[in-house]
C-alpha cells in the first residue's frame, strides 16, 4: 500500500515509524536529506558532517515516534530541520563558532532542544553500558547480550557457552550481571 503511495503525509511518516516500517523510513530519509545537507554545508560543514547530523536527527525522530505519547506539534519538515539545526549549532559552538547560522527554513520548532537533550542523555547511558560491557570482558559480555538482547533462553546459552546445564548457565549469568551492575552504577543495590 504505502509503496504505491507517492506522497506520504506527515501523519503517514509518523505512523510508519511507530510501526517500524522500513519503506517509510527510507522515504523519510530521502525526503529531507538535501535540506539538512544544504544547512550543514552552507554553515562550514562537510557532507560527511551533514550525514552524521541527519542520521542523528532521524534517530531522534524515530525514537520519538516510538513513544506512545508523542504527537507532532509542528510540520514534520520543521521538526527535522529544527533538530538538525540544533545539533549542528551544538557542533559549531563546540568549535568556538559564534552561533550564527545561515538558515534555509523559516520556522524553527523551539522544543527541539529538549528532545535532543533526552536523546543525548540516552546516548550517554548507552555509551556507559558499552564501556561497562567492555570492561566486563568475555564470556560475560556475550552472555548478557545473548540473554537480554537476543532473548536466548538458558538452555541455548548453556549449549553455546559449554556449561554443563541450564542452572549452571543461570548461575554464571547472575554473576556476570552483578559485576555489570557494579560497573555501571556507582553503587548498586544488593538484594540477594
Amino acid at each position, binding site marked *: 500500500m504505502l509503496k504505491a503511495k507517492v506522497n506520504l503525509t506527515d501523519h503517514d511518516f509518523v505512523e510508519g515509524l511507530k510501526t517500524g516500517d522500513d519503506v517509510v523510513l527510507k522515504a523519510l530519509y530521502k525526503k529531507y*536529506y538535501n535540506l539538512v545537507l544544504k544547512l550543514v554545508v552552507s554553515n562550514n560543514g562537510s557532507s560527511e558532517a551533514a550525514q552524521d547530523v541527519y542520521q542523528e536527527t*532521524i*534517530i531522534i525522530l524515530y525514537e520519538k515516534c516510538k513513544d506512545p505519547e508523542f504527537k507532532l506539534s509542528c510540520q514534520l519538515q520543521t521538526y527535522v530541520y529544527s533538530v538538525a539545526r540544533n545539533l549542528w549549532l551544538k557542533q559549531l559552538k563546540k568549535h568556538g563558532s559564534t552561533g550564527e547560522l545561515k538558515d534555509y527554513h523559516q520556522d524553527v520548532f523551539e522544543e527541539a532542544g529538549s528532545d535532543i537533550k533526552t536523546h543525548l542523555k*540516552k546516548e550517554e547511558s548507552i555509551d556507559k*553500558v558499552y564501556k561497562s560491557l567492555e570492561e566486563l570482558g568475555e564470556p560475560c559480555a556475550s552472555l548478557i547480550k545473548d540473554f537480554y538482547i537476543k532473548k536466548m533462553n538458558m538452555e541455548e546459552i548453556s549449549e553455546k557457552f559449554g556449561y554443563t546445564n541450564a542452572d549452571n548457565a543461570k548461575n554464571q549469568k*547472575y554473576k556476570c550481571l552483578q559485576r555489570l551492575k557494579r560497573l555501571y552504577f556507582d553503587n*548498586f543495590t544488593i538484594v540477594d
Partner: protein
Amino acid sequence: MRTVDLFDNYLEGKLGAQELAAFELRLSSDPVFQKAFEEHKTLVSILNASNERQILKSKLKHIHSVEFGKEAKIISINKPEKLTKRLGKTFMVAASAAVIAVFSTVAVLSTGGQVKQQDNAIKQLSLNNDKVQAQLDVIYENLGAKEDRKFASANFEGSAFALNNNGYVLTSWHLVNGADSIFIQNTSTERALTKIIFNDPALDIAVLKVEDEGLSKAWQIPFTFSNKSTDVGEEVFTLGYPREDVVYGEGSLSSLSGYGNNPAMYQVSIPVNEGNSGGPVMDSQGNVIGVIYGKLTTAEGTGYAIKSTEIIKSINAVEGDAAKSELLLSKTKSSLKKLKRSEQIKKIDPYVFNVLVYKERK
C-alpha cells in the same frame, strides 16, 4: 529463585497471578527491593535501547549509501579557515616552481608588485540572508597600478593553458576581448606574444596562438581533454594566476550546471579569484574537464567552469577553416593518471600560463 530472576520474569510477564501479586506487594512496601528493581529495569532497557539504536544506525547508513552514496562529497561551501590553509598550500606549490623564484622575489621587492596579492586578500564571508539575489562576477581585474618588471603593466590578467603541442592555448574570451596585444608567460616560458585564432563569445572561450613557432617545439602536453561529462562529487583542481606565481586550488564538482542552471557549465567548490579565469579545471587523473569562467560573489568557493565537452563541440564546429586541423585538441594520452598531486602539478605547470592583456584605455 534469585531476586534477579524474579525481576526478569516480571519484566517478561512470566509471573503467575499469585507470584505477580506478591511481587507487586513487595515492590510497594520494600524500598530496597524497589530500588534494586528500578536499577535492574534501567539496565535492561538501556541494553535493549543500545541494540535498537545500533540496528537503526546501520539501517540509515545502508539507506544513505544506496540513495546518496554516489553524490558529491562537499568539503564545505564556505569555510574561511579552509581557504587560509589552501593559500598556505599554494605557497608550497609556488616554491616548487623554483626556476624563477629568485627573479620574482626581486621583482616583487623592487616594484611593489604586492598590489595584486593584496587585491586578492581573503574576503570575509557574507552571511547576509537578505542577499538572496546572488550576483555573478566575471573574473578579471584592472591592474593598472602594477609595474611588471621592465614591461609596461598589463591592463588585464588571467590564466590560459596549452590546447595542443602546436603552440595553441585556450583562455577566456572576456579576458582577451578587445585586446591590443596578448602575452603569455610562466616559469618555463618567457613572455611570448600571441594572437587570437578562434573565439566563441557565447561560450566565453578563445584560442590563442604563440607567434614564435619555435617556442612550442618541445611541448609535450601531459593532459587530455575529457570528452565525457564528469560526475558530481568528483575531486577537481585548478592551476592559475591570481597572483604572480601559479596558484593551486582544489575542491569538488558541486553541480552539473552553472549559474542560472546554465548547462554549458559546471559549478565547482574551488576557491577562485580574479586572475583564475581561463585556467584549466582538472579531475584527479589530470584530464581537463573545464575552464574557469567566474565565481559567485556572494559565496566563497562557488566557482563556475565551462565544460570541456562544450569546448570540444565548439571547436569541432569550426568549418572550412585552414586552422581547424591545427586547432584540434591534444590527443595524447594523459600521463598523469597515477601520479601524486604534487607530481601532476609539476608536469602541468609548464602548460598553464599567466595571460597579460593590453587594451587601449577609453
